[in-house]
């Protein structure tokens, strides 16, 4: 088990290194210095208190969306629709936060979160039901549903819920999460996200549902023979996944923006998916990868401002990560070849 863990870590580090090298190659191709670009990236993410705060603020929702993807993936569902849950959860949280002022503040805060959780869970229930009962491919449904969610929120925030300015956004919410690193956007949501991640980890490790989940994900037929209902497990996991997305949306509205800002969550879902996929949905490793991606995303601005390299290079590097990381077989392939080589030399000897 220990050697397994070490191999896992080595593999991730190797993937990261290869991707950074390929990224450096692209930067060289456009005639810029990769070393300068990477230094600008690190400075962009950690150069000052403001920048560290910005990185943490970006990390908060990403942590939740990547855990959200991982939970669904563990049950064997590829939930690309977390982003839709983030948008709709945020919209409902904003609605409650603006209009339910008759509630006392602490209860209002909880109501916002509950609203977001419910919305996210119900939104993800649709593709889950379609998948388990009618075998409808969940990737296709959820990715199209993301566009639907985006347009729904965009409609509300530029129509019925609009604050009326030139920017499409809602009125400010009446309850907010405290900021922790002024003047950056880092807020108390970070602790909520971390707490949820830790609780979920232990819940999945100790509870009956967690065991069912790992059974279903590895071999759903086997799980069925053992008397579990894989359908229920998938539906449940997708709902948890959506709920986590909703929480991320709620934190963004209450903690960062204070309003519902049109298009605010574009890319949150896909980045979460990336973070989770790179580490094979391993819940212990997911937070670290989410942090790493948040660093890269925050550092991208630094690259763009201080060098002539466009910040899209960072997305490209992340995409290369994922391409390499999905290829499980590479390590085994290299090992086999080495084995063959040593065998050959032994024979010839």
């Amino acid at each position: 088990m220990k050697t397994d863990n070490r191999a896992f870590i080595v593999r991730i580090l190797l993937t990261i290194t290869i991707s950074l090298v390929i990224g450096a190659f692209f930067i060289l191709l456009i005639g810029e210095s990769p070393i300068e670009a990477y230094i600008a990236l690190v400075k962009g993410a950690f150069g000052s208190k403001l920048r560290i705060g910005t990185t943490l603020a970006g990390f908060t929702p990403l942590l939740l969306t990547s855990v959200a993807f991982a939970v669904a993936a563990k049950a064997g569902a590829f939930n690309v629709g977390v982003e839709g849950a983030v948008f709709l959860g945020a919209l409902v949280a904003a609605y409650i936060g603006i209009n339910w002022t008759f509630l006392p503040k602490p209860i209002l805060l909880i109501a916002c979160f509950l609203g977001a959780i419910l919305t996210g869970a119900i939104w993800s229930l649709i593709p889950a039901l379609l998948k388990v009962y009618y075998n409808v491919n969940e990737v296709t449904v959820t990715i199209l549903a993301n566009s639907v969610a985006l347009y729904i929120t965009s409609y509300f925030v530029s129509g019925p819920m609009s604050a009326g300015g030139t920017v499409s956004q809602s009125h400010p919410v009446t309850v907010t999460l405290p900021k922790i690193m002024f003047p950056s956007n880092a807020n108390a949501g970070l602790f909520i996200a971390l707490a949820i991640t830790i609780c979920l980890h232990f819940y999945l490790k100790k509870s009956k549902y967690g065991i069912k989940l790992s059974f279903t994900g590895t071999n759903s037929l086997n799980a069925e023979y053992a008397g579990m209902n894989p359908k229920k497990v998938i539906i449940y996991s997708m709902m948890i996944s959506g709920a986590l997305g909703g929480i991320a949306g709620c934190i963004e509205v209450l903690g960062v923006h204070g309003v519902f800002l049109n298009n605010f969550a574009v890319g949150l879902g896909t980045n979460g998916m990336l973070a989770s996929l790179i580490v094979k949905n391993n819940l212990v490793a997911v937070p670290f990868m989410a942090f790493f991606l948040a660093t890269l995303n925050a550092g991208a601005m630094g690259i763009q401002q201080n060098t002539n390299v466009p910040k899209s290079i960072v997305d490209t590097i992340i995409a290369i990560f994922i391409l390499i990381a999905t290829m499980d077989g590479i390590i085994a392939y290299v090992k086999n070849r080495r084995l063959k080589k040593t065998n050959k030399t032994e024979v010839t000897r």
Partner: protein
Amino acid sequence: MNWQNIFNASLLYATWRSATPIIYAALCASITQQANILNIGTEGIMLMGAFTAVSTSYLTGSWILGVLAAMVAGMLMAFIMAIGNLEFSADITAIGMGINLFAIAFTKFLLNSVLGKSGTFSDPAIDPIPRVSLPFLEGNELMNRLFNNWALTEWFVIVLIIILTYVLYKTVWGLRVRSVGQHEVAVTSVGINAKLIQYQVLLISGVVGGLAGAHLSLGYSNLFTENMTNQRGFMGVAAMFFGRAHPVQTVIGCLVFGLADSIGARLQAYGWPSQIVLMMPYIVTIIVLAISMMNKKHRENKVKSALA
């Protein structure tokens, strides 16, 4: 609201026009599905094709080179998927999504660094796919409006549908592809190299996907925008499910999406909020996909009960 302004003859061409990029994408997905490979990367292949087509056409001044380059680019993207999936046991959905994200990021990167633009690239130097003018139709106003001045690729897609249907259902190779899709082990046991077929299928699908992108950027429009495929690739995949990977049947699904798109465009003129209009093709796609899969399940259940 004047219904005649929405449902008139020109709606037919509008539908066909918005459906063609999706049809190409659906064909791209259908080819691999016949060999039981779900091509989630259709979207990325298409986007890469769209960018390559525009930039090549801009740099060389030739749409033919643009289209050819797009096909090569599409094939390369599919080749990455093939290597990953067939050699290194990458999960096809994961690597497909990886290809999609890579295409979005990399085309953006190239757009910024090579063409020096951000967001959209359009230039009079981009040579578009020519439009086919049929002089003999000019006498008849209706026929002229419906069939004249189609982009060449809008006609070609019909040829492609016929070719693919023929190849998949009437040739030995097509039979092998479909048998790989049904039972890989059985196929291997009679001495056919299933892996080779899967490679071929993925590469051909890449070529078609590249063509889809070229049509989108040089035929359907004449520019490149970041993420311009806008999930048409996924609509193609949905249409493929709808038509159970049969080229002709998938087209029907595409036409439904094209119809939703073009009706939406007309409703916008009547003060419908743009978001609702833009949402329509996506909702229609999801609903059509769900209904067709429910139907399939229902049919399967019937067959099962007949056997028992």
